[in-house]
């Protein structure tokens, strides 16, 4: 059943995806009105799917990639909705919607490669660890999206064509603010999530292998994240430099995610 809800959610997210594509080509009036409500309905279905999955299995099984991607999509959408509520702009959707679609797509169609088996550790703590890291990811990704929009808008203004295809983008400083705020919002989550992960791992394995690729990459990602916040805070780095850094942090995050496949600690499949 959860998989069905998830697929329904996917259907609604497809409308958002379409919006993102249309926004690139012309100022779609209908899509503008449709996208946010459709994505909202999609979120509801996704939430139902996730809850049902957790309830039916009787435990927090979030650590399976299958559900975690879905949760990540949900959190990213939530972050997007907060921005939408505060700034009334759907522009970040151009970047956010396709990713949400992709994550949900993978989770709705993919197999379940990982199973949570480490029965020793507290499942609640693990859940908190994952949720926080993902909230951090969501903030980071939104900031990354904002950086891209910033670059587009900056380019438009420099090229003296501020009313082109992207004529409806928010003002440059507003985009910048969205990016910085989501960064600030995501950072504490990411930090706490990593600390929590370390504590849980410590409790489970009684030692932490610092050279484990997952841990190494996660730490690297956190460092880039920190650098991003710091440069923006102290030197006001924005635009191109901020976009490069955000891309770096985001790439590190993706690699850290992929490292699940190589990490000894983070492997949930019993070998």
């Amino acid at each position, binding site marked *: 059943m959860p998989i069905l809800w998830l697929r329904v959610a996917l259907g609604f997210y497809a409308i958002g995806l379409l919006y993102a594509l249309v926004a690139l080509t012309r100022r779609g009036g209908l899509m503008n009105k449709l996208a946010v409500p459709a994505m909202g309905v999609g979120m509801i279905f996704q939430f139902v799917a996730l809850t049902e999955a957790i309830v039916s299995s009787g435990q927090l099984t979030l650590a399976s990639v299958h559900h975690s991607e879905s949760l990540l999509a949900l959190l990213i959408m939530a972050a997007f909705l907060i921005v939408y509520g505060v700034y009334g702009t759907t522009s970040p959707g151009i970047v956010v919607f396709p990713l949400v679609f992709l994550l949900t797509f993978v989770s709705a169609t993919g197999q379940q490669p990982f199973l949570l088996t480490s029965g020793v550790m507290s499942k609640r703590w693990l859940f908190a660890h994952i949720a926080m890291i993902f909230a951090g990811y969501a903030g980071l990704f939104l900031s990354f999206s904002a950086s891209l929009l910033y670059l587009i*808008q*900056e380019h438009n*203004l*420099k090229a*003296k064509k*501020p*009313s082109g295809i992207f004529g409806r983008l*928010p*003002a*440059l*400083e*507003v985009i910048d603010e969205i990016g910085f705020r989501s960064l600030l919002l995501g950072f504490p989550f990411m930090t706490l999530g990593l600390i929590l992960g370390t504590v849980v791992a410590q409790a489970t394995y009684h030692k932490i292998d610092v050279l484990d690729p997952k841990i190494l990459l996660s730490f690297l990602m956190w460092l880039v994240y920190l650098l991003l916040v710091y440069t923006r805070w*102290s*030197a*006001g*780095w*924005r*635009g*191109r*430099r901020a976009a490069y850094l955000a891309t770096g942090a985001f790439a590190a995050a993706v690699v850290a995610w992929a490292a699940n496949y190589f990490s000894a600690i983070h492997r949930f499949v019993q070998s």
Partner: protein
Amino acid sequence: MNLQLIGVNHKTAPVEVRERLAIPESRLAEAMKQLMQHPGVDEGMILCTCNRVEILAQTKNGSGDLHAFLEKYFHIEPSQFEPHLYEYREREAIQHLFRVAASLDSMVVGEPQILGQVKEAYATARAVGAVYSQLDLLLTRSFAVAKRVRTETSVGSSAVSVASVAVELAKKIFGSLKGKHVCLVGAGKMSELAARHLQAHGAASIFVANRTYERAVQLAAKFNGQAIRFSDIYDSCDRADIVISSTGAPVAIFRREHGERFLARRKNRPMFFIDIAVPRDVDPEMNKLDGIFVYDIDDLQQAVASHVADRQKEAERAEAIIEGEVDRFLARLQTLDVVPTIVSLQDHLETIRQAEIDRVRGRLGPLTPEQEMAIEALTRGIVNKIMHTPISTLKTAAKESEATTVVDVVRRLFNLQDREKAAKSGDGN
């Protein structure tokens, strides 16, 4: 409706002709009074802006000769203005008025001032009693149409002048202009205008630098701003989010190295340079710095031009709206027209009178011509006395907004609609 409109505008007449026909605002009321005294004119209004002079009149049975009025009022030969004159009647006149009010006939399509000018002319005309009935309806309708065009199309949404383009660009960069600081380098009319626009949109403070310090102080006083010495600009300009430069300097005052210094001090917060000077005050190289946006006069004018093109597209949609509104207005006028109702009321009572006479004549036997005349006079007298009040009520109503209701009531009381229809279908057979 006997509506006439004649006039000249920027498209049909060169400025030499328009200025011969221009009426200063102070004399407009007087001119409208004279128009009212012109033979055949029932109601009238004169619209006079720098781009157009138009006379709109409701005439008695279409008789008034507005050409003659122009000739008489301005004391000029018809040959001097006739070739440039346009003339519309009835439907076309309504359409023209709607287009003017909605700013579709303007030099810069969509500019907002024209509606205000039409409203002023209307107010003047009303004050002198030159507009009171049908023209009143028509003009108030034209304001509603203009508003509709403005809200339903984006004809009026884009900025026009260089100054408002500057504001629009500043908003693209900063979002809101609240709390933003503006620096004027060099005092010129255009930069002053731009600063005024920015201030109107919420810019917090304005400081002025000029080679002649006294001039800077003068200008700063106008904006409640602050004057700074010209030699201090490199130290002070980083405080400004928007710099408007318009000096007569032969070489650029702001160069790349200055921009880099500003950015460092501002922690890379964006800066917007509006360069109105020719030759340019801001080195185009500055535009290559991250976070600095430089627009020179050509860029601004290009933005203005692209807006004009956009507007043209929207104007087509606006034309369609106006077409529909003209139809609606005409339909409404028809119900407003009391004459047909009066005629059919008279016909109706006359038919009754004749029928009644015919009915009693048989019973009266042969009558002398004097008796015939007496009966005729008696019945006619009764009918006329009864009809007097309804007809005068209808005639007064025609000049008020309640005409539709009164016409409707009279028609229902005497069952006139059905009669007319019956008569019409009778004619058809």
